[in-house]
């Protein structure tokens, strides 16, 4: 893996943020998680999706945070927002009702169809590592119209077989997926520290779309547990623009908490 990030004038995190934000063009609302996704959504709002409504899992709509929120429940989110609602209303009336367009998920493990594990490494009853669990991820995966995944890539996280399936992705059988009747269309893209991936319409399989500048195909292969499907038009990930970098560094994460 190239360690050239710094030389290129941006960090890996900044590249991941910019690449993810571009996925939000034209999207009308987005379920915002903490950390990178928060910066991604805010960047998108200032670039490709000026009308993007940020919806926080904690029940906040139309937040106008006066500082970078430290969690999805930061008090700066509630003050000055357009609505604060109970968690029941949020999950029932918004998420389950199919009103959420895009949500971000991540996890300790992902498989080639975008299924995610945030529950356990090892056996459930005798865990090697006990992870946080689903939180809202299981229902977000089912109901949000589109799922964007942001994860660091490694052999132990991009696995042939999950230890536990917390949140369903594609099944590998698009006919089955279509017959599910869920609002959710499942994962549509994965952005890692090495590359970006889409999902093949015919098989629901993760497909390498772009390599980050300086990353070789072998770097990608070395950091995943299966032989990746590769798009015929494999390209290089477009680096963050001056405008994007300016927004990230001056407005969205001036302290570099998430982007250093």
């Amino acid at each position, binding site marked *: 893996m190239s360690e050239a990030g710094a030389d290129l004038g941006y960090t890996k995190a900044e590249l991941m943020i910019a690449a993810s934000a571009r996925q939000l063009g034209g999207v009308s609302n987005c379920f915002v998680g903490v950390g990178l996704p928060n910066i991604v959504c805010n960047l998108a709002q200032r670039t490709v999706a000026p009308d993007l409504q940020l919806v926080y899992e904690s029940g906040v709509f*139309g937040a106008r945070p006066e500082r970078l929120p430290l969690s999805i429940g930061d008090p700066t989110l509630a*003050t000055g927002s357009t*609505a604060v609602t109970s968690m029941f209303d949020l999950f029932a*009336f918004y998420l*389950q009702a199919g009103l959420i367009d895009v949500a971000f998920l991540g996890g300790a493990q992902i498989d080639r169809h975008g299924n995610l594990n945030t529950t356990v490494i090892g056996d459930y009853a005798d865990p090697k590592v006990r992870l946080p669990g689903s939180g809202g991820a299981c229902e977000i995966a089912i109901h949000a119209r589109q799922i964007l995944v942001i994860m660091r890539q490694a052999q132990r996280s991009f696995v042939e077989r999950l230890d536990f399936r917390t949140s369903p992705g594609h099944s590998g059988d698009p006919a089955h997926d279509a017959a599910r009747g869920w609002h959710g269309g499942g994962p549509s893209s994965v952005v890692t520290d090495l590359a970006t991936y889409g999902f093949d319409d015919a098989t629901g399989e993760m497909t390498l779309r772009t390599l980050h500048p300086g990353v070789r195909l072998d770097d990608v292969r070395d950091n995943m547990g299966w032989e990746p499907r590769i798009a015929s038009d494999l390209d290089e990930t477009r680096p963050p623009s001056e405008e994007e970098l300016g927004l990230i560094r001056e407005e969205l994460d001036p302290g570099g908490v998430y982007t250093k």
Partner: protein
Amino acid sequence: MSKVATMQDAVRDLVRDGDTVAIEGFTHLICFAAGHEIIRQRRRDLTLARMTPDVIYDQMIGAGVASKLIFSWMGNPGVGNLHAVRRRIEKADPAPLEIEEYSHFGMVCRYMAGASNLPFFPIRSYYESDIPSVNPKIVPMSSPYDEDDQVFVVPPLNPDVAIVHAQRADAGGDAQIWGLLGCQKEVAFAARRVIVVVEEVVEESVIRRDPNRTVIPGAVVDAVVEEPFACHPSFAQGYYDRDNRFYLEWDRIAKEPETLEAWLDEWVYGLSNHAEYVQKFGDAHWDGLRPEPALSGEVDYGRYA
């Protein structure tokens, strides 16, 4: 993005013949002005849903806009009957009216299921009542955890259009209500299209100062109509009182089709909009319905910058 529209445009664009329409509001915030505009635009074959069909539905059903009623309690509250509705149910005069009835909680749970994308909602009502025998949509079901524990379920109700009144909203539709809440939130989320009618369209900054007061977020709202006194003869907490004399008078008006028709001619068809209705009553009438102030006090959300 502003969703502000006139009542005329909102009804023209969002209410279609054959639609299921719910004008909700439990005694409070009943949007009569929207009902009048639907009459004025001569919509037909509507299915009208409402927990408590009262004077507004007597007017609409008397005017012939509906072929079916979904409800849990019908009457002129504190006064008596809905004469026009009863004529149609009891004597098919001038046409039959199909009915589908629940209890109050059954109606609320239908909206809840509709709002939550659930295929059914469980409820501990209807035991040993005859209501399920006349409404096959109310179905008994055993708990998956205990076969002997039986509930009933009701199906989702997703109106094509919900019309809810609120005291205020911003141009984007974020609507704030205080006083009785009824099932305004549930029906708005359940409906495919939502018209929010308000006493006042306010700056977004007013909404943002007290986000917990928002009952219906703009995301589910299609049109915002500013229409003061739109709830008359019902009331809007803090803005005007119930006009009880009108409820009493309606009993007399609706008793005969001729007097009802004459009322519609004078007060609905004969006027082009609600502003003319307000004007026709005159300022003294509205002044008499206005309460003295009773302010809520403020809470502090804190500025976290």
